[in-house]
């Protein structure tokens, strides 16, 4: 029954998409208000049907309706409810349905936003968005149909989702966050396509586009961060990033989206770089498609590639189609957009130049990651030889770029728009440069490598500039209005959300950079063979193996090692790394135990246990400042949300904001 209803909902969504896409393009070309009405109706219908289909699947999962093939594949009576709920994205077909659901939700929100915008833009954008929806509805209806009825006998119980995904709560928030980031990049894409199709790009449209991009970017950042955090907490190798193709797949659109957010500022302020900015928006979406293909088609081995499926070729075809359409659009319509560009009289030393350099670095970064990720695939396709590109390549290529970006984060904000003299720029950079020198000295004292020293210097440099930029306007209020500094800052921050939010994001990036440099440079790892009662010294700690015990839960049993942690002044606590045995699996999966602190993390991972439980091998690691990485990532996310928070309404009615601006702001709010 659920199979039938689900299939019907998806087919109806597919139909709505098809009609809406056609009427959107027709409405845009003819500037037909009736066609736009139909498009909007179809867009809403698509969104509602997709969300309804997903809710239905959740219902089937919760009620353990094993007549639905997807439930039979990932459901299990012994799985706890919260894991059952998130099983929706624990396997291929469900995850594609979830993709469709997020796109549907985004379409609903976007349809509301475009009400107040140019009808031609709205038509084209909805048409483009629904074309993307058409593809995913097609996947859900056909190749990746999660609602397909179970073949043969209906089982009474299922295997449950991948145990790796049941091991940690982060698995509940990492995928939806990443999906929001990935999927919602389709909206900026559709908006960019609409601007090109219409041959016009107004400030209000650009503003809405940028806000959607920022919203998606915020969740993509969060998703990547949570993925790294999960890997650190669950996989037991003590790291959070390995330049795995799947990680790269999420990182590349993040890079181009970041570049977009910066070039969009130049564009909005100076009217330059329109074509370039739109190109970045479109590339970002293409890279998310490439990423989805790489993670979902099984071309790479990873936790993310569920199984060999036939989805790959279809996906490649779609990517090719979007790529061709984008290139043709850009080539044909770019001139219409750039014709009224303001001719420039900018000097070389200006904020624009810094932004341009920033964009070059981000694109170069994307390019090197793309090369290293795709090269093995291409090589295998041509020569049948299986290779991979090692981590040293990625580290060597990315370190100079990252340090460059870090320094630019300080240089850019210090320079005024337009033009400035070298002497003036120099005077503004003197203090940050001293900070940089101090950072470098600190790194040298700690005996860090050259790149870590450069990172500390860059971080100190950017930090001084960022704090200065955040506090300077508040200090101006203090001296002119006589307010206290915190009050002045809040009042100012409430008005200049975009600016303040941006600098908060920069602060988060600086924190992350320092954490990454410190944790990768000063990490210590050792395998410790332990007998019960034995005590070993490790990096200033003493570890005492107290013994093994067994814990039984409905869906798994765990061998738990109890290790007492002793510091110089007594007991610090107990760490219990585990080895989990799942019913449906032959091999156990470990859960490391981490003692997290501001200074460093102590990380224990159980590698093996002797049959009698008298001896165990524990992999012990000390990693400085890892916790700062999660904190920095959350600061980035918070900064982006602060920037997006709608102005006006109740809390802060800003008298200086023009009324037009305020309505745009309200309209541009990406989601409820």
């Amino acid at each position, binding site marked *: 029954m659920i199979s039938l209803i689900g299939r019907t909902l998806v087919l109806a969504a597919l139909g709505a998409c098809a009609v809406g896409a056609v009427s959107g393009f027709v409405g845009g070309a003819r500037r037909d208000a009736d066609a736009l009405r139909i498009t909007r109706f179809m867009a809403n219908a698509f969104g509602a049907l997709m969300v309804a289909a997903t809710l239905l699947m959740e219902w089937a999962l919760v009620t353990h309706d094993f007549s639905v093939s997807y439930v039979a594949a990932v459901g299990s009576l012994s799985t706890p409810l919260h894991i059952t709920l998130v099983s929706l994205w624990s396997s291929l077909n469900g995850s594609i349905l979830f993709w469709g659901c997020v796109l549907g939700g985004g379409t609903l929100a976007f349809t509301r936003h475009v009400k107040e915008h140019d009808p031609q833009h709205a038509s084209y954008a909805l048409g483009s968005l629904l074309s993307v929806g058409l593809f995913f509805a097609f996947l859900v209806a056909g190749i990746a149909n999660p609602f397909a009825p179970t073949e043969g006998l209906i089982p009474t119980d299922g295997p449950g989702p991948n145990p790796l995904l049941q091991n940690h709560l982060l698995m509940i928030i990492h995928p939806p966050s990443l999906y929001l980031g990935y999927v919602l990049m389709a909206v900026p894409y559709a908006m960019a396509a609409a601007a090109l199709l219409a041959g016009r790009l107004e400030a209000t449209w650009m503003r809405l586009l940028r806000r959607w991009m920022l919203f998606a970017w915020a969740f993509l950042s969060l998703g990547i961060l949570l993925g790294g955090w999960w890997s650190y907490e669950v996989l037991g190798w003590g790291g959070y990033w390995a330049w795995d193709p799947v990680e790269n797949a999420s990182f590349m659109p993040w890079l181009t989206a970041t570049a977009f957010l910066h070039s969009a500022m130049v564009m*909005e302020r100076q009217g330059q770089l329109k074509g370039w900015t739109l190109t970045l928006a479109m590339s970002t979406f293409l890279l998310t498609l490439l990423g989805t293909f790489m993670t979902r088609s099984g071309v790479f081995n990873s936790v993310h590639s569920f199984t060999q499926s036939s989805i790959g070729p279809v996906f490649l075809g779609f990517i090719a189609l979007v790529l061709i359409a984008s290139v043709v659009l850009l080539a044909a319509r770019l001139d219409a957009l750039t014709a009224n560009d303001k001719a*420039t009289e900018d000097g070389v030393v200006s904020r624009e130049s810094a932004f341009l350099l920033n964009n070059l670095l981000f694109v170069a970064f994307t390019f090197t990651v793309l090369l290293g990720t795709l090269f093995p695939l291409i090589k295998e396709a041509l020569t049948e030889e*299986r290779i991979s590109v090692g981590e040293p390549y990625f580290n060597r290529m990315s370190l100079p770029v990252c340090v460059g970006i870090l320094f630019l984060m300080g240089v850019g904000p210090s320079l005024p728009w337009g033009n400035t003299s070298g002497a003036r720029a120099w005077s503004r950079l003197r203090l940050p440069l001293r900070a940089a020198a101090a950072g470098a000295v600190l790194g040298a004292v700690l005996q860090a490598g050259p790149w870590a020293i450069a990172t500390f210097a860059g971080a100190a440099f950017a930090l001084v500039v960022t704090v200065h930029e955040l506090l300077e306007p508040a200090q101006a209020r203090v001296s002119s209005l006589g307010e206290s500094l915190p009050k002045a800052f809040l009042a100012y921050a409430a008005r200049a959300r975009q600016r303040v939010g941006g600098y908060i994001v920069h602060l988060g990036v600086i924190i992350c950079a320092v954490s990454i440099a410190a944790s990768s440079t000063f990490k210590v790892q050792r395998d410790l063979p332990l007998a019960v009662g034995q005590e070993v010294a490790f990096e200033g700690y003493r570890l005492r193996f107290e013994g093994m015990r067994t814990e039984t839960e409905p869906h798994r049993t765990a061998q738990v090692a109890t290790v007492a942690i002793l510091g110089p002044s007594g007991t610090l606590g107990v760490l219990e790394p585990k080895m989990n045995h799942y019913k449906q699996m032959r*091999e156990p999966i470990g859960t490391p135990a981490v003692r997290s602190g501001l200074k460093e993390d102590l990380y224990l991972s159980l590698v093996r246990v002797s049959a009698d439980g008298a001896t165990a091998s524990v992999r012990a690691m000390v990693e400085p400042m890892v916790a700062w990485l999660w904190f920095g990532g959350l600061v980035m996310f918070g900064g982006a949300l602060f920037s997006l928070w709608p102005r006006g309404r109740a809390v802060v009615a800003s008298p200086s904001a023009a009324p037009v601006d305020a309505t745009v702001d309200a309209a541009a709010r990406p989601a409820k």
Partner: protein
Amino acid sequence: MSDSTSTAPPGGLTAKQRRTFLVGSVLVALLALGGIASVDMSDNLVYFWEPRELYAAGDDAYGAQIRLGGLVKEGTLNWDEGAQELKMVVTDGQAEVTVHATGAPPQMLREGIGVVVEGTMTREGVFKTDRLMVKHSNEYRAPQEGVATKELYKTVEGLE
């Protein structure tokens, strides 16, 4: 803002010239980068080989970073807890390689199971590794025995 128009000032670049310059410089930069990247990449390749392919590579095998895949030969697994050293023979059915690994092997390692080890081949004919991954079922169900070794690479999971 964005729609304000003005004529090009003397000495300034027109929009078109600027764009050509921009596109040109980006292309040149990417080309240069591509050159550097491909040189760097070829130094950092990791080869996915089975014992047979490892021997077929001849002298090229020494020093190269290799992911060797195969089955742990029955009766060859030897784990010295005191020295934290593991010795085993990895086979693909046609050729065999002696592997020395450092560090504790994962719990699930046993004879007959599929493994992938990453490391280098020494002139003494011993493959040295500090990174051992055990075959893991991809679909997270009891895996069948005797899976083709090519498939191994897709299904390792691991304690890295």
